């Protein structure tokens, strides 16, 4: 895209908050008309046609569409695949069936209760999932589905077991056919879509996408991942539960095998995959296609085994040949056509002017009695039998640029993980800014003012550079979830930071398209967004060219002059010794020396453990 095009689009698309601005934008042009026409046809169909076959087909499609839109919240946005989504249809249906039978009243009254109960159960799943990642999560959702089926089968007194529950026959005039079912489901689908759209354009969706892209990283930039996940699960189930209640009433018979059939889940998952994950309308499109296929198979090919073969084959085919789904694939195709022949930004080098635009301030003399901003006491962490960190104790004075050096395997990165909260120490304490933080989760530490980068740079790859920079959160409260994904002040602050690291031009480029050095710069801007008191950099000079190393050194000095404290792990000795004071030396998991660069270079213990007897610093880099 051109720079000007990107500029113009920001107000609408980025505030729209999706993972992919291009997709959001193209929703306007080619899709708007198609969607409007489809919605109008579906809305008016029962008025103009009394064909019950198609009414039935659309009703079932809408049940699955609600399911797929819900699943999209956890699978499309947050990246958690669930094979248990169908269970919420069953749970909703059973809630309505049991309540009508045992308490009485119209089934409609109980539909909201079904939604509430489903989202409650889903939130509980979210609690379990707090510690289950990726594969264990999928396994948990399968276990959940089968457990529900088992309960429905065996808990006779409540569910009447395999005998099932029969719901009362609708009381309205035959003249109205299935209209109440039809329009209530259409209403539920509309509310689900509004919910999905709302989540995606706000901080909530931004956080979920950050979780999808890199969950540990999201936590270190202040995203309270468990809260996000639990709320996402609850949100994903509420309307599905209600749709399940309506569905149960509609088919008027509820039994364990029909309601907790894994094929319901398969149909929902297939709908989402086929239509397109993380898109607004993809799950709806997919649901209508798949339900049509389902009915056709049942009516014309005998259902049963043929249906299994078709669903199974389709699942295999979609994963192998259409992994992104219909809508993103068409969008990608349209996007390629539009941008054909236009030069991309990625790959451009930083211009010389950028590099020397600013005079670096002179190195600040550190007050000898500066208070400790970070204090680590007797930290220990083992991996199996390896003592990675073995009683390390040190302090980082406020306002300093402290270096942490040592041979490979001496525990530097592990210390970063323990201080940042990605990992818990087995022994010892971490104090930051007068508070003990070793029991706090990473996002709380980020809120307190601790920012870190990773040795192998980690950005949210599918987000743009600007979205990456605004993703960090300096605080968290529930109200924040509803705030726009990129507010005006945030966007301008992010632009300033990108300007500072010289990456402003790349604002709308996908992070995955950047070079390694560029990623480092963006990651620095990203943690600066937290306005941290302490910035921990893990090998800022690793794997990048000498000019950029100089530039990073300059930036560190400048930020330091502005009041930021640094803790830097680095192997590039000229860089470290020219920039940092004090220097801490780590060996075998313990801090063995501390001093000015001059003292460290002469310390026999350090020469022995790390630098080597023949170490001579040829020319300290003075940036």
């Amino acid at each position, binding site marked *: 895209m051109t720079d000007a095009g990107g500029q113009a689009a920001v107000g609408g698309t980025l505030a729209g908050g999706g993972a992919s601005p291009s997709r959001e934008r193209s929703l306007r042009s080619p899709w708007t008309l198609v969607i409007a026409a489809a919605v109008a046809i579906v809305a008016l169909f029962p008025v103009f046609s009394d064909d019950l076959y198609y009414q039935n087909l659309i009703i079932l499609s809408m049940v699955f569409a609600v399911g797929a839109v819900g699943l999209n919240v956890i699978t499309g946005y947050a990246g958690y695949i669930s*094979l248990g989504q169908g269970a919420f249809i069953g749970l909703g249906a059973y809630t309505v069936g049991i309540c009508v039978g045992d308490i009485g009243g119209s089934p409609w009254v109980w539909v909201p209760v079904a939604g509430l109960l489903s989202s409650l159960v889903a939130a509980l799943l979210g609690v379990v999932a707090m510690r289950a990642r990726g594969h264990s999560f999928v396994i*948990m959702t399968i*276990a*959940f589905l089968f*457990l529900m089926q088992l309960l429905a089968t065996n808990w006779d007194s409540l569910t009447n077991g395999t005998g099932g529950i029969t719901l009362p026959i609708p009381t309205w005039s035959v003249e109205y056919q299935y209209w109440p079912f039809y329009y209530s489901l259409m209403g539920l689908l509309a509310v689900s879509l509004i919910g999905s759209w709302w989540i995606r354009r706000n901080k909530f969706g931004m956080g979920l996408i950050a979780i999808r*892209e890199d969950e540990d990283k999201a936590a270190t930039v202040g995203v309270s991942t468990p809260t996000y996940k639990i709320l996402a699960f609850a949100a994903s189930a509420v309307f599905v539960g209600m749709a399940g209640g309506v569905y149960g009433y509609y088919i008027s018979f509820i039994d364990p095998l029909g309601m907790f059939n894994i094929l319901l889940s398969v149909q929902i998952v297939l709908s989402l995959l086929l239509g397109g994950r993380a898109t607004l309308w993809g799950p709806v499109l997919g649901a209508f296609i798949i339900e049509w296929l389902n009915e056709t198979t049942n009516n014309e090919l005998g259902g049963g085994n*043929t249906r299994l*073969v078709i669903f199974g084959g389709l699942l*295999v085919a979609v994963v192998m040949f259409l992994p992104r789904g219909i809508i993103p694939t068409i969008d990608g195709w349209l996007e390629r056509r539009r941008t054909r022949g236009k030069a991309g930004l990625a790959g451009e080098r930083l211009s010389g002017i950028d590099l020397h635009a600013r005079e670096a301030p002179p190195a600040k003399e550190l007050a000898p009695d500066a208070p400790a901003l970070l204090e680590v006491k007797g930290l220990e962490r083992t991996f199996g039998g390896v003592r990675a960190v073995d009683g390390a104790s040190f302090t980082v004075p406020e306002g300093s640029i402290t270096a942490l050096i040592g041979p490979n395997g001496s525990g530097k990165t592990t210390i970063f993980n323990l201080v940042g909260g990605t990992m818990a120490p087995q022994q010892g304490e971490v104090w930051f800014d007068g508070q003990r933080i070793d029991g706090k989760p990473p996002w709380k530490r980020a809120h307190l003012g601790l920012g870190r980068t990773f040795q192998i740079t980690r950005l949210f790859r599918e987000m743009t550079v600007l979205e990456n920079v605004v993703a960090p959160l300096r605080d968290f409260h529930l109200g924040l979830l509803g705030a726009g994904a990129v507010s005006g002040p945030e966007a301008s602050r992010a632009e300033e930071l990108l300007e500072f690291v010289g990456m402003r031009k790349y604002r709308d480029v996908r992070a995955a398209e950047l070079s390694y050095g560029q990623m480092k710069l963006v990651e620095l801007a990203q943690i600066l967004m937290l306005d941290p008191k302490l910035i921990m950099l893990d090998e800022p000079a690793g794997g990048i060219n000498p000019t950029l190393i100089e530039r990073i050194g300059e930036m560190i000095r400048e930020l330091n002059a502005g009041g930021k404290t640094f803790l830097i792990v680095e192997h590039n000795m000229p860089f470290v010794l020219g920039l940092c004071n004090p220097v801490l030396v780590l060996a075998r998991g313990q801090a063995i020396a501390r001093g000015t660069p001059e003292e460290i270079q002469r310390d026999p213990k350090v020469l022995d453990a790390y630098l080597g007897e023949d170490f001579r610093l040829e020319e300290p880099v003075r940036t």
Partner: protein
Amino acid sequence: MTEFLQALILGLLIGGVYALLAAGLTLIFGVMNVINIAHGAFLILAAFITWSLWRATGVDPLAAIVVLTPVMFAFGWLLYNATIRPIRKAPPAASVLLTFGIALLLEGIMGAVWGNTSHSVRPSYFTQSFQIGEIFLPKAQVFGGLVAIVVLISLYLVLTRSWLGRAIRASAVNPQGAELVGVNVASVAALTFAIGVASAGAGGAIASVLYPFLPGSHYQWIARLLGIIVLGGMGSLPGAVIGALCLGVAELMTVTYIGPEWATGVPYLFVFIVLLLRPQGLLGTRLRQDVATA
């Protein structure tokens, strides 16, 4: 007491069969980071083939292992190269959905070929038991458990004593490193998958005698096997054996003291308890995640 001892011994024997089946699943996960949801369908397929062989020739189902293992090995190797290999670089979720699709496909095909009714293989000793004191041990269970243990030990020997075994373990621990020292990780992955499917073949032949089966039984089996590897620690072979023995005993205890209709719930309970208390499982390790690149 007798009742308890009987349940314990039968649980351990069944656990041996579970161990063989779970070993293949955990091996595939360990090397390829693929949860093979089709593992249950593979073992039911093996059970149906055993049934057909037994009906046609009267061959002992446990002896049918000699035929089934190579057949399933070849089937696994072909299937891996045709479906999983092309999506090796895709996110892990893709392989879960893919193998799930394969499971559905197989379920449909088996339903068309053998029908959706319950089958079981009944060799001559099916109704006989060994009696030790007051404890009755059905011969089928004893033979099945022993054969499973023998196959499991041979699998273990292949993994620890052969070049292929070393290559498999190297690929599991560090694929890039293995590639650098001359292991063709993609081929090793194909062989591992084939070995996993072959072990499901052997296990399926044994299971055909122990439990009645129909095409849809694969859900129950995969739930059971997933419960085992979650408990033992995903990717850990000793963990799978321990998890399998625990599940075997826990199921038999549930049947004896609570009621047979709740026995299928035991693996689900395993999954939830483990994920809440110790997500890495009994023998699983937590890896450093910061150095694992995306």
